[in-house]
């Protein structure tokens, strides 16, 4: 079922692009590359590792592993409208209704035989406790070996070294499973791709900061977190390049992501992954554009190809969900400033203690820089209780309020 889905997706986009090359948009190219990962995961021909969100996907790519964080599958199931039966399956098996539905859906899918059996699993302690638990559960379910990367909370010389050592151990773990040593050349090539993609993405995000922004509620949705899966490959460079070229052209021609952009919004944490009308309403009724997502940022330095483990460790530690809440809030405040944000939307994904747990402090922190936050109560994966009417009303009240106040960034 999933294999068919990804095959159809890849073939569909490719056919469309062939038929009408003018229809090529950055989002399509990005979707195509992501769908190709899905196709490889489900193709049955490649070595597969299920991972945690902050695994070094570029290093794994250099070792010939198709790897993916499991939450990606939860998001896919939600976006295709198939998630309910898998959530029900997991709940039936005793996974509490109150846990993160990204994980529950994956557990349901594994129990129903819809997750390819991996060669091994690599868990990461960041971003969340639930993520680690699901990896342990999957390792037991699949009876496959598990490696854990403990991502330290703060960046210190000692913590970076600790993670770098673990990543080295991970390389040995992978080699022991594949029977192949890590090729220095392939690693160099992967790091070069990562650094190139990084450099271009910095430009892309900078351009998205323009007022009005070439970005909109869809173009870069979920981008920062998912593009990590492409790092280390040419696909990451290609995807970043089409975004850069497209944004450049839009800026030159004075085209914005939505017509008459009036309100600039920041989306906190993850998007609502199933189909819903909220973005449309924001854009068409209120000229409100989501110009960035919290994770659409480069928080790490280029990786030194001569000493990549340190750079890979720093990158994992740097993600805004890691460490103390104050660090996350500082990052959000900086984004608000860079993007001249009028208001932020926090979906407060039900079941996410990591993210929703910081709700009050995020509101306070963004409030301090004059940016109001709309806290929603949604499950970003589980559409079963989606209170569309209520959410619409709240969004409307919020955007109207923003419309009547001046930008916090006006001189």
């Amino acid at each position, binding site marked *: 079922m999933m294999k068919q889905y990804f095959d159809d997706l890849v073939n569909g986009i490719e056919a469309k692009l062939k038929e009408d090359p003018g229809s090529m948009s950055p989002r399509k190219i990005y979707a195509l590359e992501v769908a190709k990962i899905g196709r490889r995961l489900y193709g049955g021909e490649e070595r597969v590792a299920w991972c945690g969100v902050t695994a070094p996907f570029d290093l794994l790519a250099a070792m010939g592993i198709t790897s993916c964080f499991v939450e990606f599958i939860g998001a896919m199931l939600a976006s295709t409208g198939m998630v309910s039966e898998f959530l029900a399956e997991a709940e039936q098996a005793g996974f509490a209704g109150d846990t993160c539905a990204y*994980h529950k859906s994956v557990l349901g899918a594994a129990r129903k035989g819809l997750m390819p059996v991996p060669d091994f699993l690599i*868990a990461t302690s960041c971003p969340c406790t639930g993520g680690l638990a699901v990896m342990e559960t999957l*390792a037991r379910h699949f009876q496959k070996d598990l490696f854990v990367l403990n991502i330290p909370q703060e960046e210190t010389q000692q913590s970076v070294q600790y993670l770098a050592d673990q990543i080295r151990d991970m390389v040995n773990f992978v080699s022991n499973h594949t029977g192949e040593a890590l090729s220095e050349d392939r690693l160099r090539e992967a790091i070069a791709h990562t650094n190139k993609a990084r450099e271009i993405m910095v430009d892309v995000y900078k351009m998205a900061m323009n007022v009005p922004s070439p970005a909109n509620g869809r173009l870069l949705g979920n981008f920062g977190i998912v593009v990590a899966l492409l790092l280390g490959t040419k696909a990451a460079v290609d995807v970043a390049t089409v975004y850069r070229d497209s944004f450049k052209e839009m800026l030159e021609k004075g085209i914005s992501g939505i017509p008459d952009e009036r309100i600039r919004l920041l989306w906190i944490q993850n998007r609502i992954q199933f189909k819903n009308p909220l973005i449309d309403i924001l854009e068409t009724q209120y000229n409100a554009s989501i110009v960035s997502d919290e994770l659409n940022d480069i928080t790490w330095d280029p990786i030194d190809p001569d000493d990549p483990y340190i750079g890979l460790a720093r990158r994992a530690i740097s993600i805004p969900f890691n460490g103390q809440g104050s660090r996350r809030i500082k990052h959000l405040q900086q984004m608000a400033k860079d993007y001249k944000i009028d208001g932020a939307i926090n979906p407060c994904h039900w079941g996410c*203690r990591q993210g929703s747990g910081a709700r*009050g402090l995020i509101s306070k922190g963004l409030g301090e820089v004059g940016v109001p936050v709309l806290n929603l109560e949604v499950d970003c994966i589980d559409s079963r209780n989606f209170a569309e009417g209520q959410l619409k009303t709240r969004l409307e009240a919020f955007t109207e309020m923003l419309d009547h106040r001046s930008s916090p960034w006006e001189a």
Partner: protein
Amino acid sequence: MTDMKKQRIGFTCAYTPIAIVDAAGFVPYRVLPVTDVPDQAGRILHDNLCPHVKRVLDRALENDLPEDLTGMIFMNSCDAMRRLADAWMTVRPEDHVMILDLPTTGGRTDIAFFAKELERLSHTLAAWSGNPIAADQIARSVEQYNQIADNIRTLNEFLAQGKLKGSGKRLQELINQATSAPFADSLTLLDAEIRNNQLNPARQNGIPVFLFGNVMPDPDFFSLIEDCGVQIVGNDFCTSTRMFENLPCTDKETLFTEISGQLLNKPPCARTFDPARPGKIADDVIQRAKSLGAQGIIGHSLKFCDPYLARLPMVRDAVQGTDIPLLLLEGDCTLRSFGQQRTRIEAFVEMLR
């Protein structure tokens, strides 16, 4: 420290190395989620965080804490605990706060890293108190707290044998006391309790059951379980026996590494695990229940506790292959919902008869 009266340093997790806190001249004080103050932590956190951290934050919000509590040590044990640390710093900005980064696994690199964290703790506590801490002092405190761990183990055995007056409720009262009072007071109390009970005859008071879970500090919980016809033969909660583990201190030069290795590899709570044996928690629960001669297992976890909620299905699956029935309860640190649970426990015990 210049004050004659020792200041208290709060903590909230069974992985906290309280001997080091003691060595620094502070009284380690477990901030238990037990309070009558109104529920309001959801304003700062979110209602979907576990009642353990919410009730602890409620205490901070209402200042329902000892006056001489001047700092907190949080362990990076789970998302909820991290968020509690954030909130604590906002609510009580004048407190000293330290967050120790606790790995989730106990391998070679993890032990080395956590040893450095323990060293950092020791330096931080020294800075808070104004006095350096010598390795000798830490070794002495470790030995002292090992005596408490021995005593708690003995009392737990008394409980399993039906010898302990006041039973499970009394044991929990003693543990709560030992996690919040100065060492000497705790030791005196526990010694006396052992003396007073050791000659009591062993008694079979009910169906032998093994209890496990995360946070249940209310002593009445244990008597309510016993009132349903249960004899608690083993009790594995973060707030009970798991709180006190013997730590090694054979070599002062490598003290932190020794303590680190022991803490990371002690009988774990669900958040710490062995990647070589995924789901080992399930096998451990069964193995412990069997070795204690339990006829049934009762698991009690808090609502919204990711480490436990995510692993209980593994326990449930594993138990199905045995002849030991399992009852899973979910609570909120209080006995508010116990009315409904009592019926389930009674039915469970009835089935075991």
